[in-house]
């Protein structure tokens, strides 16, 4: 994250119902806990070569129900390790959403319909804005509950719990 808390990068655009098998196939995730190894297979079945094209800070932009399917926490983890700074989607499947926050990967619910592949975006979580620099417009984000912002700010649930010693609601 840049010093001012604004995330910058380019959009990689996907459709609706991107499931956790597409994000990281079950055939890999049972073999290893090595996230760097798993990250090389991120999005492999729906967008071959994604892990080579994605640059640090880039965004995954999707339609509805992103992350549906299994509870595998490896899904947000490999996205984060592939270098993606946030996922923007019209809606998220709930376990993915929870896991993303727990792993410190911002999951941003907003209207993604106007974003095209390669668009340059700026995401300001604290102020709740997504700016499409390429197309010159700004979107408001559905704000996250405070506990989730706190977990994200600590970089994930593990660090949050280590700091607070429990859940603070």
């Amino acid at each position: 994250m840049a010093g001012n808390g604004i995330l910058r990068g380019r959009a990689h655009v996907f459709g609706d119902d991107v499931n956790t098998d597409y994000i990281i196939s079950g055939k890999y995730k049972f073999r290893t806990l090595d996230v760097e190894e798993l990250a090389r297979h991120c999005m492999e079945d729906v967008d071959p070569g994604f892990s080579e094209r994605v640059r640090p800070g880039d965004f995954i932009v999707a339609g509805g129900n992103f992350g549906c399917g299994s509870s595998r926490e490896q899904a947000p983890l490999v996205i984060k390790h592939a270098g993606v700074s946030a996922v923007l989607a019209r809606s998220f499947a709930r376990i993915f959403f929870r896991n993303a926050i727990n792993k410190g990967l911002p999951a941003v619910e907003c209207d993604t319909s106007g974003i095209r592949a390669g668009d340059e975006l700026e995401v300001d979580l604290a102020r709740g804005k997504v700016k499409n620099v390429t197309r010159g417009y700004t979107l408001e984000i559905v704000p996250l509950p405070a506990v989730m912002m706190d977990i994200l700010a600590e970089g994930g649930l593990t660090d949050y719990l280590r700091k607070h010693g429990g859940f603070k609601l």
Partner: protein
Amino acid sequence: MGMTIAEKIFSRHCGRPVRAGELVVAEVDFMMGQDGTSPLAIQAFRELGGERVCDAARVAMVIDHSAPSPLEGVSNLHAMMREFAGEQGLFLYDVGWGVCHCLLPEQGHVVPGDLVIGADSHTTTYGAINVFSTGVGSTDLAAAMLSGKLWFKVPETLRLELRGTLAPGVYSKDIALFLAGELTADGATYLAVEYGGEAISSLSVEARFTIANMAVEMGAKAGLMQADEKVLQWVSRRAARRPAPADPDPDASYRGVLEYDLGGLTPQVALPHRVDNVKPVEEVEGTPIQEAVIGTCTNGRLEDLEEAARILAGRRASPEVRLIVAPASRQVLMEAMEKGIAQRLVEAGAALVTPGCGPCVGTHNGVPADGEAVISTANRNFKGRMGNANAHIYLASPATVAASAVAGKITDPRRML
């Protein structure tokens, strides 16, 4: 105002009345991880500085997804689970015990009125016995193992009134597929679903698990049913803990109430690559298949094997088809052996594999070849789900899968009843 099943269960676990929309921290009655999620949970538990789990009697780990291990990487993760379970004294269901979602109710770990988490999305299954059970990730499981608690958002509830009696050859799986088609893959996202009506109450408890199992295929956080006499009897034969059934109040407030008459329902099939791409079997009959799978946490229970065996009795699987049967648990396999069901399946040409997830998630036990079509009793048919992105997966009831295995092509089971 009255409460839904979800609001009642959360209220009891928070020690105060809570309503849909509230963020709460609640005590969890039981928690579970499988071999795809436990290793990360163990890692997170250590990172949290965890030494002892809060209560070993409330934690189970199940080696079911890749069991027995096909690769050294998997073996090492299994070894990590065994070591942790041994050190902590928690329940470990090792290779051959069966699928986590069959085991937890079968082994009496969960009872009506419980709040349960599992690091597996199909944890919704126990909703069939009135348990608020939901899937979480590994770090959530680690946090709950440490503290016994977890944070939740109390969900709103969508009520489904299912009327009518199923026709012969139509099963609870057909209801689950029909509802996924109607409501779509995200039609119940963030919501609890309550299932009621005589189409549910007339089903056996085993058949109800199939429907609650697939609640998550509509995005639901839980798939809840009432604990009627059948459920209480089923549970009392297995669990030592006392159930505390949570019935919905008549004036409970719902996000919506939908009513379906299932009297005219015909066998349903989900077509590749979406679980909500559902059609009546009549519209896909004749599609050639090369593999047929009976098993998984959706349909690997005794009744499912029994239904399949009934169709296969005196018949054989087509030589063009590999028929793979994975009983959902060791107990299911034992009963299937006692009743001669296993014998009939094997005689009909089935390859019987270890109780567990079988080929469901593409780790082993029957990865299809490029271009092949598979018909399976599982709950997911995503591209690549069974380990090959160039294969096509159709989902159906055990009867439809068995009939299709015989014919070598997708077949209406009513032709073979």
